[in-house]
């Protein structure tokens, strides 16, 4: 009997069921190898067995995302595979997104290592390369012969727990994950060598290509300020004395929500700051410098705006991962939207 079990995911086309006309095909489970699974099984050798293949139409998956995912997870689960593999999807867009989606879900929910393979311009690559290892392929199934051995090598490493090396070595799309290593030379020497090349006009390779930050379109302005509810959010680390929720001084993993209902000002006896990135003495003496409750309450009473939201949201901005900040923003935005807030003042130190 083989030592390691694999479950494979294919779309209707690669499973030989049909083309576009069969894209509504519902998830189906077949024992053993289907389609490209044959070549993969051959490349993996006798220690590995593709015990089952899940087939799903691309449109069905895309239009019934949650249901299809749940169904497929159940199908995969009972086999307790060592590795879950999807594709390769090459440049098939819906198939690529489905491979990425199902791989991510299997890894998150079942804790099984996952692998897929796609062309770099497949939208699934950009959407999932951070979450899933995606082997690089050409843009059509003509590249199957190259994709299969690369996939087989990685599947073996995943099954045996062998270290997976960098993207250039292993042939997968760079995931944008920053990993430490000990270089041969120290940073100053590497920097100087880079500078010498740059001054000569010779090619050089930066350690960190500049990231591109995404953008959100500006929200529409508040139309009726007299009846608008305004909320305050801050990254300045202002928290109740004693920091009851243990928000970190740097690289925060959580945010806090604290009531300001009935208060006219941020009292230094009640609030402090735990931000690790600036001299805290001023804000500790007067937290209104970050959460401007004193003036907001006066403006509210004067009718300059409708109502101040009853609590403020807070975290530490310094060294806080953009991924965490995005999650905080999403959670805060969701709550404020539900609670009928119309505009937000976000104060950063």
């Amino acid at each position, binding site marked *: 009997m083989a030592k390691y079990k694999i479950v494979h995911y294919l779309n209707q086309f690669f499973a030989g069921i049909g083309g576009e006309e069969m894209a509504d095909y519902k998830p189906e489970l077949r024992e053993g190898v289907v389609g490209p699974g044959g070549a993969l099984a051959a490349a993996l050798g006798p220690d590995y067995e593709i015990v089952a293949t899940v087939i799903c139409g691309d449109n069905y998956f895309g239009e019934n995302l949650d249901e299809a995912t749940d169904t497929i997870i159940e199908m995969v689960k009972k086999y307790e595979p060592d590795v879950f593999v999807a594709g390769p999807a090459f440049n098939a867009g819906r198939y690529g997104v489905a491979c990425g989606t199902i791989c991510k879900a299997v890894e998150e929910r079942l804790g099984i290592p996952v692998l897929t393979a796609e062309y770099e311009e497949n939208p699934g690559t950009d959407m999932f390369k951070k979450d899933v290892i995606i082997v690089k392929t050409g843009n059509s199934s003509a590249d199957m012969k190259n994709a299969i051995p690369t996939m087989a090598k990685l599947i073996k490493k995943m099954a045996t727990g062998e270290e997976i090396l960098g993207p250039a070595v292993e042939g997968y799309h760079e995931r944008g994950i920053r990993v*430490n290593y000990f270089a041969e030379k*120290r940073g100053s020497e590497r920097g100087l060598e880079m500078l010498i090349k740059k001054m000569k006009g010779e090619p050089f390779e930066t350690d960190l290509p500049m990231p591109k930050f995404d953008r959100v379109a500006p929200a529409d302005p508040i139309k009726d300020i007299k009846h608008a509810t305004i909320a305050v959010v801050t990254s300045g680390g202002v928290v109740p004395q004693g920091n009851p929720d243990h928000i970190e001084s740097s690289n925060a993993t959580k945010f806090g929500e604290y009531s300001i209902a009935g208060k006219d000002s941020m009292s230094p006896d009640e609030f402090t700051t735990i931000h690790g990135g600036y001299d805290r003495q001023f804000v500790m003496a007067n937290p209104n410098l970050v959460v401007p409750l004193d003036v907001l309450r006066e403006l509210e009473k004067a009718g300059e705006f409708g109502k101040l939201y009853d609590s403020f949201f807070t975290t530490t901005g310094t060294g806080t991962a953009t991924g965490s900040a995005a999650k905080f923003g999403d959670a805060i935005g969701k709550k404020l939207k539900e609670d009928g807030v119309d505009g937000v003042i976000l104060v950063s130190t």
Partner: protein
Amino acid sequence: MKLELGKIKINDIKFADKTEVKDHVLYVNKEEVEKLVLEDDKLIGCHLEIAHPGESTRITPVKDVIEPRVKVSGGEIFPGVIGKVTPPVGTGRTHALDGMTVVTVGRIVGFQEGVIDMSGVAADYCPFSKTVNLCVVIEPAEGLETHVYEKAGRMAGLKVAAYLGETARNLEPDTLETYETKPIFEQAAEYPDLPKVGYIHMLQSQGLLHDTYYYGVDAKNFVPTFMYPTEIMDGAIVSGNCVAPCDKVTTYHHFHNPVIEDCYKHHGKDINFMGVILTNENVFLADKERHSDMVAKLAEYMGLDGVLITEEGYGNPDTDLMMNCKKVEQKGIKVVLITDEFPGKDGKSQSLADTCDEATALASCGQGNMTLQFPAMDKVIGTQDYIESQIGGWAGCVNPDGSFEAEIQIIIASTIANGFNKLAARGY
């Protein structure tokens, strides 16, 4: 300006009746050192401990790390802070006790003091796991205001280092290194065919626990200026900061600035090292704008072809780094940045708080958010009481046996953003 730097190798530290160096061992009179520290009435307690590489010892919370040095040709070490500013600094002869440090340890001022492990996994990330360390453990007077306590701790370390440096005054050094930078026109003329390279050295200057001193001047109060590289080797710059521990440029690191050392190594071979532009990282946008303009102006004025820029800290100083990069590149001068990264524990977030299109060349000093399991140690110099609130720790990260999990940013100088270490990060 020419400096001879003589190094006396120290293999061990021992307590004795007389403070002296014999056969590469530093003997320290405990009482004299403790008395020296307690001259400051802000400090009510002081004791010394020795930590050796390989021991099951943890030192925390660490404030600064300093190498003992002495001026043997006239002049004084740490000018403007401990010593006098004249006669000139960065010229003549200086002796250093090599392979050992003075480490100041004590109750935290903020969250920023860090950890040195003398063995175990964390030792791979810390330069001071490989030196013999004389730890000066201080106890502040009750109710001391934080700025006052920070200063008392800073001065205690510098005083002890200067006192120990005296032992090297009449010793014959094991090695003698010579560093020279000439006045600007002479220097430019010396190697006319080599590209003229400068170093833009950004000093942390954000306020309490984020300050640096240049000849005793608080770095947030100066405008960018020019410096001979050798001045730094006589202690023209001392650290008053703890930023995040991983990023701290200790006073030891100012003595051993890696960019300056490596530029001298290449000087006359493939570059003409012209000197250092010092600047700061202030908390007001107007300062950032003004000082990056001035940095670019100085770089142009010096006729530089290329510069290396290092930063200290992360977050808003990334903006200073990018402004300097952009404005210097716009003068037609090639720029390489040296810095570290903070992409979150999973390594998936953005590494820097700010970016610019001109930052095409960057040498990474590693990412500070990766976590390590710190083993329990047989001996703790200082106290582990604050680990959970120190930067890199979190609530509940410490286990009852004294082991803990934390990000490597809790380790002193682990990802120091001047390129001192071999640690780097790459994309996976």
